[in-house]
């Protein structure tokens, strides 16, 4: 026994450097594991997408601070912050949410792709008053988001947040908007599959008219539509959606 221990000691002495290296690697691995445990395997990102002027930044400020402050202008860069939702401030042990506000400018939209791996849910903000004039643009953007998600491994749900419901009769209902979008996306399905874009898979069920239900069945992407108002801070549906995506724990 003693002999064995001696031998071990000698071996350790000889192999001190390799032992050190071994521990170093172990520590690094541990650090990685801790990081993984802290940030979680799934991420806590909620994306705010949609065309310009729909109210993404206002919703972002409302969710984060509970007020819209001095108003907003067109965003120039992606804003993201891991924060407690304003409506849940003061609560203990609530999991923070990473809100990411992607500018709606056509040249900035594709920036969301960098965030998709950590995304748990997408809030697609729509201006319900200006919907009809923007519907093709909205459908196109949504189509791109969906095709991007369909290729991804995880399929976060999408909330169509029909903003500006405070405008009363001018604002279209969320049901109407959802139906029109389904129609527009159906058109896009036929036109988009040409000139090098045909490699993308079909969204919805092949051979059937596109609908959100079919999308959920075939690709597992759940799309719901709700009327909200960022100005009046009527965002219960949004916070509810966020908490379904990123549980309070």
């Amino acid at each position: 026994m003693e002999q064995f221990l001696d031998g071990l000691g000698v071996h350790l002495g000889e192999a001190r450097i390799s032992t050190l290296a071994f521990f170093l690697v172990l520590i690094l691995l541990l650090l990685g594991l801790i990081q993984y445990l802290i940030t979680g395997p799934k991420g806590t990102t909620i994306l705010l997408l949609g065309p310009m002027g729909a109210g993404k930044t206002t919703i972002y400020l409302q969710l984060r601070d509970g007020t819209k402050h001095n108003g907003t202008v067109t965003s120039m860069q992606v804003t993201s912050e891991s924060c407690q939702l304003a409506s849940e401030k003061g609560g203990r042990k609530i999991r923070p949410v990473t809100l990411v506000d992607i500018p709606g400018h056509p040249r900035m939209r594709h920036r969301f792709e960098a965030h998709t791996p950590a995304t748990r849910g997408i809030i697609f903000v729509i201006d319900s008053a200006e919907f009809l004039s923007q519907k093709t643009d909205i459908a196109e953007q949504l189509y791109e988001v969906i095709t991007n998600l369909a290729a991804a491994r995880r399929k976060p749900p999408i909330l169509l947040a029909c903003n500006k419901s405070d405008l009363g009769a001018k604002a279209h209902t969320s049901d109407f908007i959802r139906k029109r979008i389904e129609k527009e996306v159906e058109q896009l399905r036929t036109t988009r599959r040409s000139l090098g874009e045909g490699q993308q898979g079909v969204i919805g069920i092949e051979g059937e008219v596109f609908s959100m239900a079919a999308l959920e069945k075939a690709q597992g992407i759940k799309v719901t539509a709700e009327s909200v108002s960022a100005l009046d801070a009527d965002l219960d549906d949004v916070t509810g959606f966020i908490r379904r995506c990123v549980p309070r724990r």
Partner: protein
Amino acid sequence: MLDHFCVFTKGGALLWTWQMTALRGNPIDALVRTCLLEERSGDDSFTYSPPAGVPYTLKWTLHNGLGLVFVAVYQRSLKLLYVDALLKRVKADFSVQYSPKRFDYAAFDETFRSALREAEAQVDAAKRPGAIQAGLQGQNLRNRKPGQSGTGRYERIMSTEGDDSDDDEDSSPPRSDAAPVKQLNDLSLGPKASNGNNGSEAAPTTDKDSEEDGKGGEAAFDVTKLKGKGKRGLGGRPMKAPKSKAKEKAAKDTKKTEGKKKAQRRWTQSGSEAEDKELDFSEKPDGSAVPSESENGFGSAPDLRLKSRVDVEDDDELDDDEAEPSADQNGGAQGGGGLLSSFVGKLGMSMGGTAGLTRQEIQPALVQLKRKLMERNVAEEIAEKLCESVAANLVGQKLGSFRLISTAVKEALEAALTRILTPKRSIDVLREVHAARARGKPYTMVFVGVNGVGKSTNLAKIAYWLLQNKVKVMIAACDTFRAGAVEQLKTHCARLNVPLYERGYEKDPAKVAFEAIRAAERAKCDVLLVDTAGRMQDNEPLMRALSGLISLNEPDLVLFVGEALVGNDAVDQLTKFGQRLADLATGPNPHTIDGILLTKFDTIDDKVGAALSMVYTSGAPIMFVGCGQTYPDLTRLNVKAVVRSLLK
């Protein structure tokens, strides 16, 4: 009178506004959408025409370190001279108060009001003819007070220029008076100079200046001396670079002073790469040995990659007497054995310092990237503007520790390129065709462009693609000018089995197109492709005819066909086409170029710059790319691939 002033974050949250009168329309959003997000931040001002009333001029300045934007709005008819100075002042004052979590800056109102009063008073004083001298003197004093670093430097440059003009003319007012006069002139004539771009102006001058020196007789002696000095005066006083301009002005002085000044200039700038390259020029008898040595000696990533290409190295040798950038890659090896900070400085690495990037620091990387863009066939004007805009967005930004400045600049440029090339309007032609079909009207596409770029060939390719997508196509031969044009289309139509509308030669193409639309409607075709004669952008009668064709027939899509081989001329072609179409149109809303068809894309390898030049100039997206001679050789632009080959 200033109408509106506001401060907002790049993320889009308004922080503070001051307004004199309510704004008509939405100029701020328009500024962000059509100027700042379109890589035109380097521009001087932006004009916004509201739906009703007189147009506004907007001026802005960015604080990149804090991510803030400062915008001033006033009516265009008023030439407000103080706006630049005011923006600068407010930027300095506001950034002191700013904190990311704070949204209430009511206390800033007072600060702003006093700044505005002061700025207005300055201009008023300058305007009064009798009181010029006194007013200027006052302004001079006041200018020195706020922002010593900025204004002070600027003044120094101007004062020497003032001196210069004094020598030329016969007037002899004291120096302090001459300086502000010049400065004022400059503010009104070229406000850009006061836009905080001092560095940009000065840096190239330094290079040129020193190049000349290098060629001088006593160069070798100077160089060794300077090198020694350079090592001692590491990293010190980098802000002094603009002074070199003044030095240049005074270069006619005595020999002795000149030598001294030169030494001083180099000494101050020794930290930057731009400096050492001159040494290179003078010392290098044969341009070949030195660069290769420097590559091996310095493992900075972008340099290595650049040099690995044989052709790039060739270029370095070929144009080393005129190209500054090649020299600044070589520069590193020369001053090599310096202290750590010089080493880091030469690597272009940020040491996790607290100060943001300065113009001087990013200049070498920018010059290098600009050259690379131009090698890729980007028009020079565009490359320049783009780098200007990237610089405007980078200056003041803080880098993480040990990040290469060149990498940061490259990333910023890459983002900018992607943003430009990403289409801002839908390029889904098929979908628009479907919509037109629902309306019961043929979708009309007009192909325009200069001679021999491939209009007819690519028209046939598009016809082929539309046929594949089960769309009924008709072609109209409105090239009634070139011999054989109609026959060429006849052949295509016969092969594709598509109806052709033609009226032979010597007819007015506008009328032919008009009749063709009617014919397409009768034949229940979904799409009408109109081929036009190629024309040079300067040919007035032909451009007039084209404009007539477009305003008479109101096509759904005007497609500019341009070849990818084109270099600097791309800008000229597109601007002139767009402008002529706008000028010569009769209606109130002229129809200009909607999209671009880029042809001969298969012939250019990695010189894809024309794509960028065209999109940047016209703002229109590239809708199709022709990449071969046969019918199926039509694709969409792969933005990522183009950006990659631009920066490769």
